[in-house]
């Protein structure tokens, strides 16, 4: 068999996925912790404060990676949801559902840190600005996917409905991204590339490290949640029974 097809068949098998992800998770957590520690050290002790925003710029090391993750995870959910619906790959359905709470957590984090950054800089915790409002809509979309999945008794039907909602909701992603260009917003435009204000390399490095470390957080958390969903769905199947007997001895 073609090695790529074989790989997809293997990863699509719940027992194999459960075992493989079990080996992977501790490594992902370890890498996340190491990179985060380095990034925070550089962000707090090496990077300068901003000449206009002062020390509040340190909130950027949380806010920007969290906002990037909130969009990236929803985008991945839409892609995985599409694959799940078209090719009926069960692991993809599980990954869509497992991604939603992680994405919601990052969206909440982006909104909270943004609000705490906005108060000293803009003089308010919240404005109904296009960027902030579209990010809040994203949080509701995550909640919608989770609620829709939990409203069905049959898990596969639930996962398909949630996958469909993930695809439909992806329309919000370009709205979030371009909101600062399409409308007059209090939120600043991108600091990266184009006409952006640019960013000092000493600030850029911890920011990029945080952006990388959050990917490892997502990976570890996603796999933990996917394993839990598989255990719940397959608890009457042979591989789970075998797993339980192995743990007993």
């Amino acid at each position, binding site marked *: 068999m073609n090695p790529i097809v074989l790989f997809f068949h293997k990863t699509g098998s719940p027992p194999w996925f459960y075992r493989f992800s079990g080996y992977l998770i501790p490594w992902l957590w370890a890498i996340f912790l190491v990179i985060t520690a380095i990034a925070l050290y550089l962000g707090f002790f090496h990077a300068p404060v901003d000449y206009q925003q002062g*020390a509040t710029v*340190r909130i950027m090391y*949380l806010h920007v990676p969290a906002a990037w993750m909130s969009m990236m995870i929803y985008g991945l959910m839409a892609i995985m949801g599409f694959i799940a619906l078209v090719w009926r790959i069960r692991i993809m359905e599980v990954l869509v559902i497992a991604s939603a709470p992680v994405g919601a*957590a990052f969206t909440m*984090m982006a909104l909270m840190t943004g609000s*705490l*950054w906005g108060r000293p800089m803009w003089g308010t915790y919240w404005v109904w600005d296009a960027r902030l409002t579209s990010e809040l809509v994203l949080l509701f979309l995550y909640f919608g996917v989770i609620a829709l999945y939990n409203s069905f008794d049959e898990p596969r039907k639930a996962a398909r409905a949630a996958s469909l909602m993930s695809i439909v909701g992806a329309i919000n992603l370009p709205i979030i991204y371009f909101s600062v260009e399409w409308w007059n917003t209090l939120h600043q435009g991108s600091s990266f590339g184009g006409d952006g204000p640019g960013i000092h390399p000493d600030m850029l490095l911890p920011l990029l490290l945080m952006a990388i470390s959050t990917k490892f957080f997502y990976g570890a958390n996603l796999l933990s949640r996917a394993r*839990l969903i598989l255990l719940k769905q397959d608890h009457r199947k042979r591989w789970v029974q075998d797993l*339980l007997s192995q*743990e007993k001895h």
Partner: protein
Amino acid sequence: MSYTPFIMAAYLLSTAVLLWAALAPVIKKRSLLRQLKARQQRMDKTQ
């Protein structure tokens, strides 16, 4: 205006959110495994 409370609040809230996200599946898995093991033991006894 001191910025420290805003920075500290941002880091504390983010830590709380990420800790919740990380620990929730671990706690739920432990409880599920306990339930499944108890059920398996009950079934073993009845057989």
